[in-house]
């Protein structure tokens, strides 16, 4: 099969109505995929945003944060999945844990660097005008660091969406199913079709962040 044939085959696979309904259908797999991605991202954000902001604000523990984050970045996602599968069992946990480990470092490091990097004059003025520590963090540092924080979230979101295909290895579906099953059955249209869906999803996430940025980053910071 040449490339044109492959593309045609993948297109046929993608547009086949049978692939768009039922538990094995694309909408269902897509929802599973998004569900795992969102869950991992939310948990990672709940860990990394407060921790990064706090460390950036106080300036204490910055070295530890960056070291741990870099270490976490070096963990192979699939290896962690297999490890958690052996420790626990097949299911949601072995999928979510590696995804959290993947998503946390970029959010953590960007939030920390963003808050820490806020112009000292801004912090000094805020303190000198009588803002409390929490006030400075929430009303000055976080809004000013928001472009960098969003960048971290976006990086994490795209990585998670692209990597959530590993859910198929733990037997809980997602778009990875088409790729894993396709490879096992030598059903290449399914592999390519599944991959295309994942890529499309990553692009959509990217675009969504353009919208989010417009909504939450002050116009005064968009230059």
């Amino acid at each position, binding site marked *: 099969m040449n490339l044109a044939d492959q593309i045609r085959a993948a297109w046929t696979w993608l547009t086949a109505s049978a692939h768009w309904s039922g538990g094995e259908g694309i909408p269902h797999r897509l929802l599973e995929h998004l569900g795992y991605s969102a869950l991992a991202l939310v948990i990672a954000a709940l860990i990394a945003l407060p921790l990064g902001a706090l460390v950036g604000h106080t300036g204490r523990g910055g070295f530890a944060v960056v070291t741990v984050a870099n270490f976490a970045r070096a963990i192979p996602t699939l290896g962690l999945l297999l490890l958690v599968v052996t420790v626990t069992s097949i299911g949601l946990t072995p999928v979510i844990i590696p995804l959290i480990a993947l998503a946390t470092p970029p959010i953590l490091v960007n939030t920390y660097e963003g808050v820490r990097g806020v112009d000292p004059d*801004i912090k*000094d*003025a805020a*303190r*000198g005008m*009588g803002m409390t520590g929490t006030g400075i963090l929430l009303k000055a540092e976080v809004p000013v660091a928001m472009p960098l924080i969003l960048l971290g979230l976006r990086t994490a979101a795209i990585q998670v969406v692209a990597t959530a295909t590993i859910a198929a290895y733990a037997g809980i579906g997602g778009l990875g199913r088409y790729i894993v099953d396709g490879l096992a059955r030598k059903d290449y249209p399914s592999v390519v079709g599944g991959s295309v869906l994942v890529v499309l999803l990553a692009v959509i996430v990217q675009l969504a962040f353009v919208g989010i940025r417009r909504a939450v980053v002050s116009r005064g*910071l968009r230059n």
Partner: protein
Amino acid sequence: MIQFDGVTKRYADGTVAVDDLTLQIPTGQITVLVGPSGCGKTTTLRMINRLIEPTSGTITIDGEDVRAQDPARLRRGIGYVIQHAGLFPHRTIVDNIATVPYLLGWDKKKARTTALELMERVGLDTKMAKRYPYQLSGGQQQRVGVARALAADPPVMLMDEPFSAVDPIVRKSLQEEFIRLQSELRKTIAFVTHDIDEAIKLGHTVAVFKVGGVLAQHSTPDELLAEPADDFVREFLGGEKGLKRLRFNRDLDRQDEPGAERQDKPDVEAAER
């Protein structure tokens, strides 16, 4: 009046930033703290609103020890202006100016109305209200910084080299407007600069600091120029040459302004009597 009594600031490594300082900053006047870098003038200023805590001694504002008050509340009652303005880049000009009123829980509309009035007062077009700091020049940003410090009408203002980061022409106009503004508002102002010309021009009194945080002389600009207390002060004023130039400029400034002396000058003498 702001009163320093035997105030010392010693850091953990043994460095003495301010050494046994006793100083009065009279109500309704501009007191300029001037000196070379490392003389403790900024530390002195920042101890007034407790951004830095003294190691020993007391600082009172109108008889009340600043350390008896909650730092955040104390600071909301004291205007604060810094060199690069330190405006919030994510807030519009009007919201920047209204920062302290918001902190004090003012009604949003009232805070904004006040902010708009202050824009006019410091010579800013109210059309700029909805703009963001990056859209303003350095001089305009500094005006916003002054307006922001004035927003809640504090009796005391602390200004740390507020006009140092702008070019000489803009600085001159900012200084002149500042003098005009002060003749209307009569705030108690502590003003830090390293620029002796600025000190002579703006101060009702000038406090000259030496490296190591020692107060070398505190007197009116005229006394300072007529009788430098010691060699250090004489040197800081630029020696005989520098003194001549400063005296000459001072005479020029007097001629520039009709009515000669600044209107608020008689009060200085009245206060001293």
